């Protein structure tokens, strides 16, 4: 982990408190809901899924409320329309990485290629053919990480 150097230095000075400080570091990041349809069920599911991959507590702060980013029900109560600004807050050992991953999910419009259209019966659904993006041999589950 990238904090190893500073951690051992600090560790000499404040021996018992320091690990807690690392555990409780909070980072935040502002994102904008770019999706025309807003943060509806599908993007909310994608956000909650991504958030659950991380150990840190993830909260999403809207205009009037703060909700659990790992809960789709909570995220839906934001009723965040297109253009809404939200603040993502992560607290825990992998907070920065979690926010990087979640931030890019918002930036990439939740990877919802065909979302501006309606899903009527005549429409060809693009979505199902696109997710097979993983290259064989690459570690799985690292989408968006490390950037």
């Amino acid at each position: 982990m990238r904090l190893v150097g500073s951690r051992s230095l600090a560790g000499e000075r404040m021996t018992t408190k320091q690990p807690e400080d690392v555990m409780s570091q909070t980072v935040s990041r502002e994102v904008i809901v770019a999706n025309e349809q807003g943060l509806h069920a599908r993007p909310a599911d994608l956000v909650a899924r991504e958030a659950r991959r991380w150990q840190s507590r993830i909260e999403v702060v809207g205009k009037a409320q703060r909700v659990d980013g790992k809960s789709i029900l909570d995220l839906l109560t934001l009723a965040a329309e297109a253009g809404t600004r939200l603040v993502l807050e992560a607290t825990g050992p992998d907070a920065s990485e979690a926010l990087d991953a979640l931030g890019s999910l918002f930036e990439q419009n939740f990877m919802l290629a065909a979302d501006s259209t309606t899903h009527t019966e005549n429409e060809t659904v693009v979505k199902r053919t696109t997710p097979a993006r993983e290259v064989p041999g690459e570690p799985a589950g690292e989408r968006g990480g490390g950037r």
Partner: protein
Amino acid sequence: MKFSDFVAVEAIRPNVAATTKEGVIREMSQSLVDAGKITAGELESIVKAIMKREDLGSTGIGRGVAVPHTKHPSVSRLVGTVAISQAGIDFESLDGEPVQLLFLLVSPPDRPGDHLRALENISRQLRDDAFCKTLKEAGGPQDVWRLLEEADAQSIAS
């Protein structure tokens, strides 16, 4: 958006017969036809569109709740209904649990805000365990309607 703004009381089904995902979506859509909220001629198209949406990811959002939905050009305002399955239905839910409470929504394509606010209200109320429990135990459509109205009144008060 309150329940009473989009739920058609005549279409509420407190004890659905269907045991499958497509079956219950069909039964609920049919209830909207029977209530005069969607036309019989659009039934198949709406069922297919809702199933297509389910293919993208289940709307079984956990806690025994599902919100099957679609946008559809045949409606000019958001219409919806509520169904309860006493047996529970395999809905490929996000948490793997069978679904007992269903809120089906059909919204006009150009009103994403209404759809979001209906989802907001549904999810806000369904975080309340007591509300879920009493809804599951409701005997008839009028009982369900009364519970929804009470929930509406509380959300206005709070």
